[in-house]
């Protein structure tokens, strides 16, 4: 880490942030849902389309070779970003984190989980890391177990050893998209491996904000989406240990994923293409690589450090200005935490809150954040969530606080 982040310079890289909304400066506090793009990502995708586009893997002319080169270079860039030991085999491009987890459930899950087998989930999961397992549980008659949530908004791991006993698979988030809690994933994964389980990490929230090393996390699979880490929509990543991916049946069938097809069958391609049926999102991969380069140039420690100092500022300002009128669903302080603030303000409904905030140009997300079991546990139908990223600054938090005050007056 080489000093704090120069936010003013960063902001200039993001054209979308220069606009006005309802006569106010755009204050974008919804990066946990989807982040914005630096010009370099937009340029990389434009350049790809303007100079290079052709289908990958099948052409022998130079345009196609260049498309192929950029696509595979993106795989290597992503692999390096998450510390993948064998990026060329282990990084599978998919549509998004949701598809990555569905792929694990549909392939590894169907091949390895049988009636009565136990799967351990947590109360903090996004629907993307719940519903695929619920679907498989229904299909295969699996036993689902749950790590609960403590009153400190952290996972309650007191019972972990008992819960892990006999479990075949553990699927857990690395960071809650509602609470901002960074889970003790490495410890959970180590205990899960001791119990003989395979471990899936939903990294959708942590990969964009924290330095990631799949070895240090100790996961067997890691899922994340480009669009939450300055990249485009339409592409996500499944990283998996090569030996597990190798043993898994393919997911979608079609072109690109086969080695041979006969009238009576097919043999699948080698990794990672075995899991990439059909024409992949090539320009999106190029955009994702540019996003990775952008984040690497700044440094993930600096990104995270910036978010934590902004989080601390927000916690202080909101407490000073609103006291008990405002509740933050999430751990106090900045330890094991990312820049997500799920808010309840008096009894103003989160939809009304975000509507009033929008009039001040402040974008926050209202709703259940695709985590209904967690919302039930919190005892609220919805929250208004403000989330921070590298382009946010203290004035954004001030704008949020000012807009909250207007909402308070309106619904007084």
């Amino acid at each position, binding site marked *: 880490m080489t000093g704090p982040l120069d936010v003013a310079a960063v902001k200039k890289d993001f054209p979308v942030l220069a606009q006005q909304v*309802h006569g106010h400066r755009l204050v974008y506090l919804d990066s946990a849902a989807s982040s914005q793009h630096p010009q370099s990502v937009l340029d990389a995708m434009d350049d790809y389309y303007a100079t290079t586009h052709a289908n990958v893997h099948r052409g022998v002319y130079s345009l196609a070779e260049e498309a192929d080169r950029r696509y595979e270079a993106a795989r290597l860039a992503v692999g390096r970003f998450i510390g993948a030991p064998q990026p060329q085999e282990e990084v599978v491009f998919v549509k998004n984190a949701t598809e990555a987890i569905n792929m694990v459930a549909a392939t590894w899950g169907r091949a390895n989980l049988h009636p009565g087998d136990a799967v351990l989930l947590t109360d903090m999961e996004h629907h993307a890391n719940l519903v695929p397992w619920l679907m498989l549980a229904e299909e295969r008659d699996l036993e689902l177990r749950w790590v609960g949530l403590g009153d400190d908004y952290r996972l309650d791991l007191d019972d972990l050893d008992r819960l892990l006993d006999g479990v075949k698979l553990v699927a857990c988030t690395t960071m809650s998209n509602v609470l901002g809690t960074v889970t003790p994933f490495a410890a959970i994964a180590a205990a899960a491996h001791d119990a003989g389980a395979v471990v899936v990490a939903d990294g959708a929230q942590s990969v964009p904000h924290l330095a990631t090393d799949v070895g240090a996390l100790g996961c067997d699979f890691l899922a994340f989406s480009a669009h939450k880490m300055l990249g485009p929509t339409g592409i996500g990543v499944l990283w998996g240990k090569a030996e597990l991916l190798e043993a898994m049946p393919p997911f979608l069938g079609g072109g690109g994923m086969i080695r041979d097809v006969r009238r009576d069958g097919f043999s699948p391609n080698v990794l990672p293409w075995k899991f990439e049926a059909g024409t992949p999102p090539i320009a999106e991969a190029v955009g994702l690589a540019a996003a990775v380069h952008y984040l690497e140039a700044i440094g993930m420690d600096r990104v995270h450090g910036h978010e934590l100092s902004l989080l601390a500022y927000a916690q202080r300002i909101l407490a000073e200005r609103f006291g008990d009128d405002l509740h933050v669903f999430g751990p106090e302080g900045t330890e094991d935490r990312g820049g997500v603030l799920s808010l309840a303000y008096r009894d103003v409904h989160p*939809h009304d809150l975000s509507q*009033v905030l929008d009039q001040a140009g402040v974008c926050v997300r209202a709703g259940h954040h695709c985590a209904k079991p967690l919302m039930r546990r919190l005892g609220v139908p919805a929250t208004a969530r403000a989330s921070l990223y590298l382009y946010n600054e203290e004035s954004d938090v001030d704008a949020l606080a000012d807009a909250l005050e207007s909402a308070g007056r309106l619904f007084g």
Partner: protein
Amino acid sequence: MMTGLEDLYREIILDHYRSPRNRGELPEPPAHRTEGFNPLCGDEVVVYVLVDAGTVADIRIAGQGCSISQSSASLMSAAVKGKSVEQVRDLIRTFKSMMSIHEARLEEGDGEDGAPGEPVDLDSLGELAALQGVVKFPVRIKCATLSWNTLAQALDELETAGVS
């Protein structure tokens, strides 16, 4: 108040939000209970309706939601009580066409004076016309129509059951 918001948060709406009418439950039977969900935001509404001799004799609303869904439910309950099922169905239709103006516009490319749907007789809606500002905030339309769709479903269920 900030610009634009006064179209949405009319005084009548805030009043019905703060002091909702016909809030609560009805014993079932004889009343009929139907739940509605807005899957996007988790809002839920429970409509209890008592139909007697082809008339909505009583109605109660339970559940939770934002100011728009709650006030719309409250306004609806006041508007339909004592009306014949037929009149209520007409009202539901009129209300929903008021709420669909924007959808027509969206398809037209969001022109300010894009083609509206059928003309809506706002006078026939009385206090309910206060909700017309919602169409300027398209994501909130579902909040406003939640209780109406739930009531329509309740009436359909009753019809299927041969009660009305």
